[in-house]
């Protein structure tokens, strides 16, 4: 009898302490909840609403139904900016990961000096993207740029990276490779977790460096590579600052280049330069849709390709 009472008391006490714990937790979390409601939930809803309107900030939003979405299909600059963004992302993501992996593998073998070189490789990541945009204009300048002077010196063709529509995006990919320090650091951390025994036994088996890389390294760190693919793809789709700095803005409109019109740049122009906020909102949803499709596809594909340790998938 007494045991039953104490059990009931205990559960009552526990319920009380549970409620107290919940209240305390919610108090700690409250800043985020508040911010989530104000700066995520409401903006998402309102952006959805705006995408069906004509809105210039000064006059009230004017409901136009699907017009913005229909216009997007007919707007050649939507197709252009989307294509530009796709090309840039498709070029930059593999380039990023291959170069970063190669450098991380070199660092892994450098033993004592690896800390020093890691610092050096990471440093460019600190450069503000505006300055990267400026450096792009200067170092990749067709006539006087350092890159082209070097290319000419060794007898290679020196394209006009900052003006030739064909070479603008490869140029931007190259300059973005300069600031990929975080990918190197992340891959190096992953490489350090690969058991050395795997390589030792592979070496005894006569596997060369290429075989070791493709059969051991890449599969063992595939989850990290996948993480970087996702992150870099999302970042690629939202490319803005470097290209905007170099090719757009108030003064250098004579210099603007359609080959560098990325989707977010065009969205920014529509929203904040032409004040077509309804249209820009519709564009934002299109971007969200494209990013979501890409991410989902990458997740589906990854299920076949990615190896998670201690996980039977």
């Amino acid at each position, binding site marked *: 009898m007494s045991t039953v009472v104490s059990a009931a008391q205990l559960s009552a006490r526990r319920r009380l302490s549970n409620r107290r714990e919940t209240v305390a*937790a919610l108090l700690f979390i409250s800043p985020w909840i508040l911010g989530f409601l104000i700066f995520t939930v409401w903006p998402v809803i309102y952006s959805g609403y705006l995408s069906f309107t004509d809105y210039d900030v000064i006059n009230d939003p004017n409901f136009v139904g699907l017009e913005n979405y229909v216009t997007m299909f007919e707007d050649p600059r939507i197709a252009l900016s989307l294509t530009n963004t796709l090309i840039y992302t498709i070029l930059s993501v593999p380039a990023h990961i291959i170069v970063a992996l190669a450098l991380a593998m070199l660092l892994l073998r450098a033993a004592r000096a690896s800390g020093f070189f890691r610092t050096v490789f990471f440093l460019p990541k600190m450069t503000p993207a505006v300055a990267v945009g400026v450096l792009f204009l200067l170092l990749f300048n067709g006539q006087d740029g350092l890159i082209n002077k070097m290319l000419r010196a060794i007898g290679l063709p020196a394209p006009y990276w900052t003006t030739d529509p064909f070479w603008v995006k490869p140029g931007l990919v190259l300059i973005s490779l300069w600031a990929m320090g975080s990918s190197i650091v992340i891959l190096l951390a992953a490489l350090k977790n690969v058991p050395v025994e795997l390589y030792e036994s592979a070496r005894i088996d006569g596997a060369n460096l290429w075989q070791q890389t493709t059969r051991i390294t890449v599969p063992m760190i595939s989850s990290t590579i996948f993480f970087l693919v996702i992150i870099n793809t999302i970042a690629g789709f939202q490319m803005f600052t470097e290209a*905007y700095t170099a090719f757009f803005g108030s003064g250098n409109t004579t210099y603007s280049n359609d080959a560098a019109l990325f989707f977010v740049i065009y969205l920014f122009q529509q929203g904040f330069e032409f004040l077509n906020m309804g249209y820009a909102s519709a564009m934002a949803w299109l971007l969200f849709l494209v990013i979501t499709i890409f991410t989902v596809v990458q997740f589906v594909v990854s299920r076949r390709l990615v190896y998670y340790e201690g996980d039977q998938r």
Partner: protein
Amino acid sequence: MTSTLDPTDAAARAAAPLAAAETAEAPRVVPPRRRTTRSRIARVVLYVVLAGCAVVFTYPFVWLVSASFKPRSDVFDNLLIPKNFTFENYLTIWQEAPIGVWLINSAIVTILAAVTVTASSAMVAWGFAYFRFRGRGALFALVIGTMMLPGAVTMIPTFLIWNGLGATGTLTPLWAQNLFGSAFYIFLLRQFFLGLPRELFEAARIDGANNWRIFTRVALPLCRPALAVTLLFELQASWTDLMRPLIYLRDSDTFTVPRGLKSLLDQFGFGGEYHWEIIVTASVITTVPMIILFFIGQKQFVDGIATTGTKG
């Protein structure tokens, strides 16, 4: 392609030589001496390649700093040591643009952004890490989920909020959102809190400490390395941001340094007056604080990034 990445295949391959070694002692093909010379050559090659890469990675910095000490006509001469060394660009830029004001604006925004986001994110992260309550998992999934939402979707309504509050043209929209925490840092700090032994907090509770005291006096001091990472990451993110200053700032006197650099580029770059020495100098001024920041918090930056990748 699939077969190379197939884990079972890799495991089988890795296991096979072990089995072989058990049945038959494999004779050493390469005599030990030749092997060391070969590996010594390999080491030399390795360091030469690494040094070459290091030059490529540092060269743009050196080029930029060097160019900022050259007169207008020499900017593109690509010499590492300026032929005609001059300090004039730094004086000219001070007259041409309110660089001092920009630096102060950037400092204000950057410090406020970093301090507020660290404090608020730590609080929220602690709420998720320490307490057990129904719906915790789902709520935390929501926090992580917000990271997938592209900034472009919320950009316009967020502008309308600040515009409605009359805050456009001020520095407030550049940092005030950080009062509400940021998903990435909440994730990072929660991860760190979860790694701390729970007994410490239970001991404090038995000693009569309330929830706030446990958080501020026990958890936060233990969390210092992760707080430093958060602070440094946000200092960098906030200092280098261009998009928000482009959206919210109109007058030159309210500009941050990157926004100022962009306006100088518009004025003196292509389509402008071709005064590249000014732009180069402004770029150096924009970049140097970040280099200093990196050398202060080198370890935190590198460790912080490495953690992101392995736990993400």
